[in-house]
């Protein structure tokens, strides 16, 4: 680096910041158009939020790995406590509630639990002696870590969050070297349990979502409406799209949630698959960055956290995109860095911040001299 740029700024992880800026900037453009050519109410807030969270992320990146390791379990317990508080608030308020209003921001503990679950799992595997990885000791604590928060969010009811926790935990376990037989077994178990869960575990509206995902045209004006309209938006966009500000599906409100969960469809209508490929490419860069950080980390905790958090981000991307193109049922999961929404951006930026911190502090190999 030469002297034109001050050293502290030059030292920032610009590669990932550029990727995020591109995603957020493009997202803001889409939100600007979706609001009919106004920064209000979405695009402006979107950029502002990113700016503030970017500051937080840079501060986070300065934290040493040991810091994260030390606060992991307290954080987990704190969120567990907050989940119970939310549950009680909902009980008192006479309805289900998912967040705590702190005046300045609203905290959604179930959302924050997603990255923390990854941290907790990594923390556990870090402490687990390597030769115990095949034993029962490697499994039951994970089950315990998963069970408590899952039960609490399922009561809310927020089934999607429970799945996200299981996913995060599973990915970390997989990376940590749990025997493959577990994953085959889990796959087989899901194949058997899925119908049972569908018929006995899901509420009717959730059953509808699954049914309609399988055949959205059956109910074009009801619950299948979202998927149908999303496909119309993407399909009518073609290769180059209808042009910035010319999307009819979003502007005339045919596409529901066009600024949150279905922002990709809003984008694709105006920018076509060219815009879609651009976003996919940015995500590819982001995932590559995350996994590279994981591979280059020298500590087991760092490896598992970086890989796990990358996969948490990926989980959002995957569920959202598969849903928007009609390959997965409708789930209320936004598109990271593009969708408008504070709570999900906070989670994503927390993930990014911790990965940045790992990138900055790759650490030394166990047993090596530090």
């Amino acid at each position, binding site marked *: 680096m030469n002297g034109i740029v001050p050293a502290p700024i030059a030292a920032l992880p610009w590669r990932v910041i550029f990727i995020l800026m591109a995603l957020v900037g493009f997202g803001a453009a889409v939100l600007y158009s979706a609001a009919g050519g106004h920064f209000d109410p979405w695009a402006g807030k979107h950029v502002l939020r990113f700016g503030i969270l970017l500051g937080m992320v840079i501060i986070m990146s300065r934290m040493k790995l040991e810091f994260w390791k030390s606060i992991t379990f307290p954080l987990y317990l704190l969120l567990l406590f907050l989940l119970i508080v939310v549950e009680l608030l909902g009980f008192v308020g006479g309805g289900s509630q998912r967040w705590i209003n702190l005046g300045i921001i609203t905290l959604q503990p179930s959302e924050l639990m997603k990255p923390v679950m990854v941290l907790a799992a990594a923390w556990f595997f870090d402490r687990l002696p390597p030769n115990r990885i095949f034993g029962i000791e490697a499994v039951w604590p994970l089950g315990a870590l998963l069970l408590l928060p899952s039960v609490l969010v399922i009561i809310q009811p927020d089934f999607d969050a429970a799945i996200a926790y299981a996913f995060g935990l599973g990915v970390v376990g997989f990376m940590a*070297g749990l025997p493959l037989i577990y994953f085959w077994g889990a796959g087989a178990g899901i194949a058997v349990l899925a119908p049972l869960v569908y018929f006995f575990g899901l509420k009717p509206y959730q059953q509808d979502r699954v049914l309609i995902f399988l055949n959205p045209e059956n109910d074009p004006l009801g619950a299948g409406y979202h998927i149908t309209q999303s496909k119309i938006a993407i399909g009518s966009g073609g290769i180059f799209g209808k042009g910035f500000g010319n999307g009819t599906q979003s502007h005339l409100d045919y596409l529901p949630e066009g600024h949150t969960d279905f922002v990709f469809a809003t984008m694709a209508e105006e920018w076509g698959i060219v815009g879609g490929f651009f976003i996919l490419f940015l995500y590819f860069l982001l995932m590559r960055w995350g996994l590279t950080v994981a591979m280059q980390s020298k500590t087991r905790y760092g490896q598992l956290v970086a890989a796990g958090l990358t996969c948490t981000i990926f989980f959002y991307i995957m569920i959202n995109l598969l849903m928007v193109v009609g390959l997965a049922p409708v789930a209320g999961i936004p598109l990271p860095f593009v969708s408008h929404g504070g709570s999900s951006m906070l989670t994503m930026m927390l993930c990014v911040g911790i990965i940045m911190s790992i990138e900055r502090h790759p650490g030394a190999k166990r047993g090596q001299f530090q």
Partner: protein
Amino acid sequence: MKVEKQVTSGQLDFAFTRRAAFVGGVQAAIGLTVAARMSYIAVADNEKYKLLAESNRVNLTIIPPRRGWFIDRFGKPIATNRADFRVDIIPDRLAKKDETVQTLAELLALSTDDVDRIHRELKNAQGFQPVQVADGLDYDKFAAVSVRLPDLPGVSPRQGYSRFYPSGAAVGHLIGYVGTVSAEEYQKNKKPLLITPGFKVGKDGLEKTLEDRLQGEPGAKRTEVTARGKIVRELTTRPDTPGKPVQLTIDIDLHNYAARRLGLESGSVVVFDCLTGDIITMASMPCYDPNSFSDGIGRVEWKMLNSDDHIPMLNKALQGLYPPGSTLKPVAGLAMLRHGIDPEEIVICNGGYRLGNRVFKCLGRHGPVNMTTAIMKSCNTYFYSMGRRIGYDNIAPVARELGLGQEFPLPFPSQRYGTVPDSAWKMRKYDQKWTESDTLNAVIGQGYIIASPFQLGLMAARIASGLNIQPEILLQKRAAAKPLSFPKAHLDVVREGMNLVVNGAGTAVRSRLMLDNIAMAGKTGTAQVRRISGSQRGQSGAWKYRDHGLFVCFAPVDQPRYGAAVVIEHGMGGARAAAPIAKDVLTFIYDRAQAMASLEALEAGWGGNIEQRMAAKYAVFQNQPAPPPPLDPTA
């Protein structure tokens, strides 16, 4: 897990690297899946989704085409379109169904009948297909709904057109009427236009048969709408192409006059241009008001029409069949002349004619009569005698040549062509030989022979001009008519007889035209409805057993231009009921003021013109105790 496997952190590191690479691969695979799926939707199915996006965005409202006008031979309107106000409901946008219908019922003073219908149609309706609430509204009611629109989502007040017949009932049978498309018609041809509120098709008469010419092309209003149905802006609107106007041969003033002049009678007037065959007038009364149908006829009015013994639903000019009576004597005269009867040959009338042991009565004792006198006096004895001499098989072809028993290629949904009997016909129909008494009956227009007023009018016109004119209702240039097969001398004899009927010492002298230089010739007829019993002779008693009154005529005598027939059902006599009407109708052609004066005097005694009388009748009918309600009109 009996064998303790020793795992080092180095091995776990290695496993991590491999598994991280695997995870990266899975991520890439999912990314590619999304990319492929997106490309498929946006490239392969692009056309399909473009269309769907467009049909989301654009709401197409069909503008029903304005129906082609009917105009008369001088361009005066017979059927036009009147701007009216209507209110529909768009089911998709209806928020509170019952409350909205309730509010509309109050604002528009809808009957329970209407409210039931709206509820029924809403139940079966789908999507953006509007359901009619009411049409033909006045501006006040329309405005009352319009100002409350913000509270009435889904309600659509619109300006449209409805069919208007300035002449009202007078043209009902001639033009027919329009109505909404029936379920069967829609099943046959599922054009969305057909179920667009405000769209009507011809249901009867010329409206029905000329539908293709009159219908026109619908327009379309394209608006950009949001998912909630809010109109963002109007896109290009394609205006409707109105149907083509149809010019009829009718002289609407004369036609209206004839209809009014029929007054309280049940009957018809047909006037031909005897040089071209153009139908100048074809009135049949009583009649329904076609305007009532185009606004959707009420239950009470429909019941009133159907319970009337004068049968207002029947076009008597084309579909009424009557024994022509003595109006057929000129036809018999022409046949006799053709078969060598000297018109000056005298027959002595002693008040009847004996055939075997049966006496066929004449209306009077006419003494010695030749052909013209026989026509003038309507002497049955002469025609019995001469008809018997030549035989009816020689008369029937003449009757047919003059148009009786014939059907004509006219665009009316139905015309009845009656019967001109002869021996072959009787053998075919009854397997019986033709008898001489059949001849005697037929020659004076009784017995088997029946004809429509339309045919009788044509007969008079053909006799008047001697031309083989073809009747026509659509005004157009046509080749000049060819002469009939009768020599002028024969026609002159018959015409002279008909002249004497009115202007000599005949049966209709009281109906002589009060005009300078223009005279009318004619022939009266009185047709029995049932066999003469005792002295009644069908001149009294119940209305439906009284004789029909007929009159055929032409004018001017010296240079015939118009041929006409007037048939008054149960009018008791041609001279009494039919000839005065013919006189006034023909007078109207030449001197409107005189004819109108005569009509107005009559109408004063009848209780007003057609419209006033129908309104009064409707009021009386409505106040009758209601009959028990029908079981279930929808079942």
